[in-house]
C-alpha cells in the first residue's frame, strides 16, 4: 500500500510554466505587427487554374437553405468554366461544410484561406456565421462574398454583400404597406436573433416618422414553436392593419397554420414576410400562404431573358421540381460579379480586386446590378411579391430601378435615432 504520496505534478507543472515563460511574445496592442505577421496571400496563379472556396452548411439545421445556395454557386462555376473561365483560368472549387455552427465557419474559412490558398470564398447564411468569419477575412486580408439579405449596419472591406441591405428590402416593404395597402398600424413578429431585432428597430423609427402605429412586437426563439399560439392571440386582439413578419425557418409553419386557423386572412390582415422564399413555401403550406406578401429582390417568376436561362439551367441540373429563390440568385450573381471585378482588375490579388470593384455590373436574373465600391454592397431593384396558389411568388410592386445600397441608412434622416456599430457606420 502506498502510504506516502509525493506530489508528481510539481515537475510537469514547472516544466509547463517554463515553456510558456520562454515562448516568445508577439506584438502588443499599438505596436506595429512583426514583419512576419502579415503573411502575404499564398494564392498561386501560375497554373491554368485558380482555386475558389465554397463554404455553406451541408449539415445541421441551416443545411435546408444553404444546400440550395451551394447548388447555384456550383451552377455558376460550371457556366463560367464552360465559357472559358476567368482570365483564361479554369475555376477549381474547394468545398467546405459550415455545419450550421459559427465556430466551424470560422475554422473552415481559415483553412480555405491559409491551407487551400483560395482567391475568394463564397458562402455563409446566418448573421452569426458572417460575424464569425468577418475577423478571419479581415485578419488574413481575404475576400468573402455573402449572398443573403441581412440586417445592414456593416460594411467590411473584405466582404462583398450581394444580398439586400435594409434600404433595399425592409424600407421598400414599409413603403408598400403604407402607400399601396394603406396600413396605419403594424404588428411585428420575429424570430429572436439579430436580424429581426435590428429590422424592427428600423421599422419603429420609420413608423414614428410616418405616423404608423406599432401595436405589438413579439419574438419567438429560433427553432421553437411553443409560443406561437400566444403570438397569434396577441396579433388577433391587436387589430393591426398588417403584420410584418421576420420569423425564420420552421416557426413560420406553426405561425401561418395557426394564423389561418383562428380565421385571420390575407385580405383582412395581410402578413408581409422577409424570410420566406420559393423553396420554403411548400414546407410552410401553400394553402396557408396564398395571398400573403413577401419582400425580396428576385422571384422565380421575374420576366427576363437572363432569368429564363437561369431557371432553365437550374431545372436541367436539379430536376423540374427545383425552384429558384432570392438567396440562390444572389449567390449565382456573386460569382459573376467576382469574375467581373477580376477581369476589370486583370488580377486575382485581393487589393486589386477591391480597387476595381466600384461600378462593376452584371445583367443578373433579377435585372442589372452594380457594385458600390464604397460599402461593397450592390444596387438592386426591390420587388414586393404575392404568393400564388401554385406556390410561386408574383411581383405586385417594384421600385422600378435599382436602389443604391445604404447599409448605414445615412440618407434617411429618421434613422438617426438608431444606434449604429461604430466600426463601420
Amino acid at each position, binding site marked *: 500500500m502506498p502510504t506516502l504520496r509525493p506530489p508528481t505534478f510539481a515537475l510537469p507543472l514547472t516544466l509547463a510554466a517554463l515553456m510558456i515563460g520562454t515562448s516568445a511574445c508577439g506584438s502588443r496592442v499599438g505596436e506595429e505587427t512583426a514583419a512576419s505577421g502579415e503573411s502575404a496571400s499564398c494564392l498561386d496563379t501560375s497554373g491554368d487554374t485558380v482555386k475558389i472556396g465554397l463554404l455553406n452548411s451541408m449539415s445541421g439545421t441551416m443545411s*435546408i437553405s444553404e444546400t440550395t445556395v451551394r447548388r447555384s454557386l456550383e451552377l455558376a462555376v460550371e457556366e463560367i468554366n464552360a465559357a472559358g473561365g476567368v482570365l483564361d483560368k479554369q475555376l477549381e472549387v474547394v468545398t467546405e461544410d459550415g455545419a450550421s455552427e459559427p465556430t466551424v465557419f470560422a475554422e473552415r474559412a481559415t483553412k480555405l484561406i491559409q491551407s487551400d490558398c483560395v482567391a475568394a470564398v463564397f458562402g455563409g447564411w446566418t448573421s452569426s456565421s458572417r460575424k464569425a468569419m468577418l475577423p478571419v477575412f479581415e485578419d488574413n486580408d481575404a475576400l468573402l462574398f455573402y449572398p443573403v439579405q441581412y440586417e445592414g449596419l456593416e460594411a467590411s472591406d473584405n466582404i462583398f454583400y450581394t444580398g439586400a441591405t435594409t434600404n433595399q428590402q425592409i424600407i421598400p416593404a414599409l413603403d408598400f404597406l403604407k402607400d399601396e395597402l394603406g396600413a396605419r398600424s403594424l404588428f411585428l413578429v420575429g424570430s429572436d436573433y439579430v436580424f429581426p431585432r435590428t429590422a424592427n428597430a428600423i421599422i419603429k423609427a420609420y413608423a414614428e416618422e410616418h405616423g404608423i402605429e406599432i401595436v405589438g412586437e413579439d419574438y419567438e426563439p429560433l427553432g421553437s414553436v411553443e409560443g406561437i*399560439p400566444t403570438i397569434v392571440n396577441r396579433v388577433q*386582439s391587436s387589430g393591426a392593419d398588417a403584420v410584418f413578419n421576420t420569423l425564420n425557418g*420552421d416557426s413560420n409553419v406553426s405561425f401561418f397554420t395557426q394564423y389561418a*386557423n*383562428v380565421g385571420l386572412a390575407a385580405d383582412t390582415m395581410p402578413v408581409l414576410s422577409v424570410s420566406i422564399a420559393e423553396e420554403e413555401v411548400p414546407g410552410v403550406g401553400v394553402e396557408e400562404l396564398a395571398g400573403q406578401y413577401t419582400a425580396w429582390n428576385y422571384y422565380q417568376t421575374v420576366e427576363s431573358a437572363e432569368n429564363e436561362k437561369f431557371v432553365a439551367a437550374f431545372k436541367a441540373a436539379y430536376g423540374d421540381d427545383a425552384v429558384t429563390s432570392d438567396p440562390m440568385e444572389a449567390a449565382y450573381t456573386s460569382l459573376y460579379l467576382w469574375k467581373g471585378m477580376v477581369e476589370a482588375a486583370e488580377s486575382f490579388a485581393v487589393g486589386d480586386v477591391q480597387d476595381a470593384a466600384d461600378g462593376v455590373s452584371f445583367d443578373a436574373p433579377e435585372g442589372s446590378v452594380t457594385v458600390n465600391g464604397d460599402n461593397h454592397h450592390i444596387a438592386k431593384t426591390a420587388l414586393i411579391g404575392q404568393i400564388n396558389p401554385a406556390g410561386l411568388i408574383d411581383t405586385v410592386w417594384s421600385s422600378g430601378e435599382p436602389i443604391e445600397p445604404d447599409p448605414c441608412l445615412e440618407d434617411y434622416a429618421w434613422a438617426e435615432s438608431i444606434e449604429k456599430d461604430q466600426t463601420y457606420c
Partner: protein
Amino acid sequence: MDAVLGQLYAGISLGSVLLLIALGLVLTFGQMGVINMAHGEFLMAGAYTAFVVQQVFDSAGLSLLIALPLSFLVGGLLGVLLEVTLISRLYSRPLDTLLVTWGVSLVLQQLARDLFGAPAVEVRAPRWLQGNVEVFGTPFTTGRLFIVALAVTSVAVLSAVLRFTALGRRIRAVVQSRGLAETSGIDSRRTDRISFFIGSGLAGMAGVALTLIASTQPYMGQTYIVDAFLVVVAGGVGQVRGAVLAAFGLGVLQAVFAYSQSVSTAKVLLLLVVIAFLQLRPQGLFSVRTRSLV
C-alpha cells in the same frame, strides 16, 4: 376576457402536446429507469409516417385516420427493435442507456435527412381540422382541439389499461418492485418489451398530431425532448396523473409567462421554475413508495 381564455387555451394545447410526448416516457422511464433520448426521433418517425401515408391516399382525412394507428405501430416497432438490440443489455446502466440512445437519435435524424431530404415536408391537414370554433368570441382552433382530445383519450385508455387489465397489473407490479414481481412469476423482461412498445407507439402517434401544428423535418424530435423529460421528472416518475398535472401545469405556466413577459423569456423562466421545483422536491409531484432511500 377573451385574451385570458385564448391564453388558457394556448396553454392547454401546449400541455396536451407535452403530455402526448411525455406519456410514452412515463412508461419507459418509470418502469425501466431508461432514459430514451431517441424518443423524440420516434415522434419524427410517426410524423414521416403520416407524410408517406398521404402520398398513397389522396384524402387528407382518410390518410390521417390511417396514419394514427400505423404510426403507433411504426413507433412501437422501432422501440421494440431498440429495446431488444441495445437497451435490454443495459438495464443496470441507466446512464449509459442515455448516451447510447443519444447516438441512436443522431443516426435516425441523419437517416431521415437522407431518406426525405433536409427541407420540411408538407403534411396537409384535413378540412375538418382547419379553422376554428368560437367559444365566447374566442376562436378555438380545431387542429389543437383534436390534439387535446387525442391526449385526453390516450391518458384515459392508458390509465384504464394500467388499472383494469392483467397486463396493467403486471406493469404496475414491475414499476413498484421488479424483484418481487419476478418472484411472483411475472416475466419482467416481456413486460418491459410490451411497455416499450406502447410507450414508443404513443410517441409515433404524437408525431402525427404534431404535423397539424408544426413542421415535419428531421430535427423535429429535438424540439420537445428536454421539455418532455422535465414533465416526467416533475410529475414523479412512473406516474400518469403526475405527468398530466405537470404537462398542463407547464403548458399554462408557459402561456402565462409568454403573455406577461415575452415569448422568449417565458421559456427561460419556465426552465428555471422547473429546476427550482426539482431542487425542492426531487421526487416530483407524486412518487411511488419504494424501499429505495431516495
